[in-house]
């Protein structure tokens, strides 16, 4: 293969997901006038914020050559506890902060199981996923918790606008920038990549692998809890089944974005693009009127094509 061809292929790899996104948007726009409106675009972004925040956390975890299946359950448990606190009279702002702290702590537990407990990430987070979901059911007695009053902060997180832009969208972009900075400009980011790239080498270069992994799981839990708060705000109640299956959408977005499932390689902006592709598919296929059964098949095929085109040549 000559150099030029290689270069083109490399670009195609780097921008494959982006090209897919643009093609999807163009295609659906042509098919549907409803899709190509500013207000639909904003609501699409708002819908994507839930999966986006979780997927950013998931990216960090996957970069260290691990996985976090527990995000959906962390989301449910932290949201339920937050709602419980609010109905018990705790000020909403405080309850929300505690929910975030709790989310991070639940993530840290997975991290400790993986590092100190030497469990495989898949198994460790399968355990926490199951246990946290069970705890949510116990706490809520299987019923939604509603009547959350009309706290301004709680409403703001999910329903608020800033210059006509939904707060969840602002959060999504802000947190994307923070992750971009963390992963690309700080020593922490280097440690994350190094841990996933070659943990032996990283350890010998003085990287505390356990600490890095535990932090990364904490971040993942924190992000799950944050997206839970957005959901809580929008729905006005905490459902015990909330977030069920969200881990799969997040992992799909990370994979779409070109991050290697064996760690060490990947970009946070790739994940962002992956998140948008999934959101466009969900939103667009609904608008165009594709049956939800077909939607899943199409989503699966899009992921397949994206991942195949991303393969190292």
């Amino acid at each position, binding site marked *: 293969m000559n150099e030029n061809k290689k270069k083109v292929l490399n670009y195609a790899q780097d921008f494959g997901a982006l090209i897919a996104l643009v093609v999807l948007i163009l295609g659906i726009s042509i098919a549907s006038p409803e899709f190509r409106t500013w207000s639909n675009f904003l609501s699409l972004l708002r819908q994507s914020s839930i999966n986006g925040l979780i997927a950013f956390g998931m990216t960090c975890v996957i970069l260290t050559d691990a996985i976090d299946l527990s995000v959906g359950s962390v989301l449910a448990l932290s949201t339920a506890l937050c709602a419980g606190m609010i109905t018990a009279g705790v000020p909403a702002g405080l309850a929300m902060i505690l929910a975030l702290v709790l989310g991070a702590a639940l993530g840290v537990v997975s991290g400790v199981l993986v590092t100190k407990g030497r469990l495989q990430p898949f198994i460790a987070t399968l355990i926490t996923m199951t246990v946290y979901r069970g705890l949510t059911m116990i706490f809520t007695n299987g019923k939604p918790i509603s009547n959350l009053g009309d706290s301004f902060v709680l409403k703001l997180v999910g329903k608020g606008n800033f210059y006509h832009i939904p707060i969840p969208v602002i959060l999504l972009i802000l947190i994307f920038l923070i992750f971009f900075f963390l992963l690309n400009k700080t*020593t922490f980011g280097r440690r994350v990549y*190094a841990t996933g790239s070659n943990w032996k*080498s*990283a350890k*010998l*270069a*003085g990287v505390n692998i356990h600490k890095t992994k535990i932090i990364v799981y904490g971040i993942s839990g924190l992000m799950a809890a944050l997206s839970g708060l957005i959901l809580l705000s929008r729905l006005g109640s905490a459902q015990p089944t909330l977030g069920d299956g969200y881990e799969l959408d997040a992992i799909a977005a990370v994979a779409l974005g070109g991050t290697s499932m064996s760690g060490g390689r990947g970009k946070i902006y790739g994940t962002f693009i992956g998140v948008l592709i999934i959101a466009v598919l969900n939103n667009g296929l609904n608008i165009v009127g594709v049956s939800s059964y077909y939607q899943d098949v199409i989503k699966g095929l899009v992921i397949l094509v994206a991942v195949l085109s991303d393969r190292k040549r």
Partner: protein
Amino acid sequence: MQIEMKGIDKSFGQNQVLKNAGFVLAPGEVHALMGENGAGKSTLMKILTGVYTRDGGTVTVDGKEVLYKNPQEAERAGIVFIHQELNVLFDLTVEENLFLGKEIRNRLGMCNQKAMRKKAEATLEKLGVQIPVDRVMSELSVGQQQMIEICKALMVDARVIIMDEPTAALTQSETAVLFEVIQSLRKKGVSIVYISHRMEEIFELCDRITVLRDGTYIGTKKIPETNMNEIVKMMIGREIGERYPKREVTIGREMLRVEGLTKKGVFEDVNFSVHAGEVLGVSGLMGAGRTEIMQAIFGNLSLERGDIYIDGRKATIKNPLHAMEHGIGFITEDRKTEGLMLEESIKNNISLANLGRISGRAGVISKAAEDELVSKAIEELHIKCFGPFHECNNLSGGNQQKVVFAKWIYTNPRILILDEPTRGVDIGAKKEIYSIINELAAKGVAIIMVSSELPEILGMSDRIMVVREGLIRGIIAQEEANQEKVMTLATGGTL
């Protein structure tokens, strides 16, 4: 079975590992193949058994020229290679291992357990060892696993069995059993090629010795007509020349001292010290425990007992980070699995051990500081690359090693441990690495250099410490050291 290998050449890329190598194996003899690490013994045997193809030369078996395309073909011809790393599946039973891929089947295509069990038990009995065939492999001792490998060979009616360092992991009593088995095989007319570093074993067991050096055939001797000294000379007989630049360094105060370092079964009661500006060479055979001792000092392997003193003060080193805080740097034996992140850029690799140096208090990396560090490293160490973003995978061995050096040099270590610093590195880069080592010593760094290359050890070290089976067998000053002395200590003799 008579095997004759003549004029065998083999190169891997630029690196010629065999030139005009060969040997002759007579029926029913135990033939030792000797040479330093990297002399080409294993490669020669891999060519015989079809693991590698030869670039030139002839191989004849019973007078007919052969070229086996793969080990299975060699096996069908009756030649079996038992590798140093045993080729067994640990989660399967003895019987399943013995019949892997050659299961006896009944008419329905299902496994005929009864027939397999019978044959397995019969073969094990022929060997005179008692191992229940339904035991899971991982429950067996290494010695027993080795017996299973030999048993596998017998089941395909091997006429020639090649054993690569078969006793490396065996206890004395297991070794005795192995020797009995080898003797009985010889009586049945099976020929054995015995690759080992252990001189006493070879003189006890073998009929003839063939020596290889630098990939070339040196000679064959009958055991009764030779002695250990002659064999050692054949193995190492080369001029060191001026490959090792001289350095003018005054050796300073003691930087590192270890006392009574012990990890049962790996190394015991290790005591030594290194001084500023000194190069302490560490010699020994593969698996002697040298690497493990160094890993333990660097905190990457836990110690059972023993103290580490740095600058005369007792230091607690529980992980590599502690070691780095005490000013220790460690260039590992295997740059591909431990030294480098191969898929990452030169920049990211060098930065990883220097994150503190290139970042501010909040852990934000200063691009300017990083760029300066990396371009300085590339320039000072003459790393041949397209720039800081060059992926380490695509660098030559020598340049990869320079990246590993760069990673550590700029942490300003006061004690630097080098494990096989020039393995797989071409002559030119070797010389450059030697100059780097000398410059560091001149700056007052205390250097410990583990190496399996005797000339390198003799050429570079101020003192030479010889390790054998986890014990320090002696420390020789450079003026008194020569290859014979080091080899004698390393193979279990006394001076």
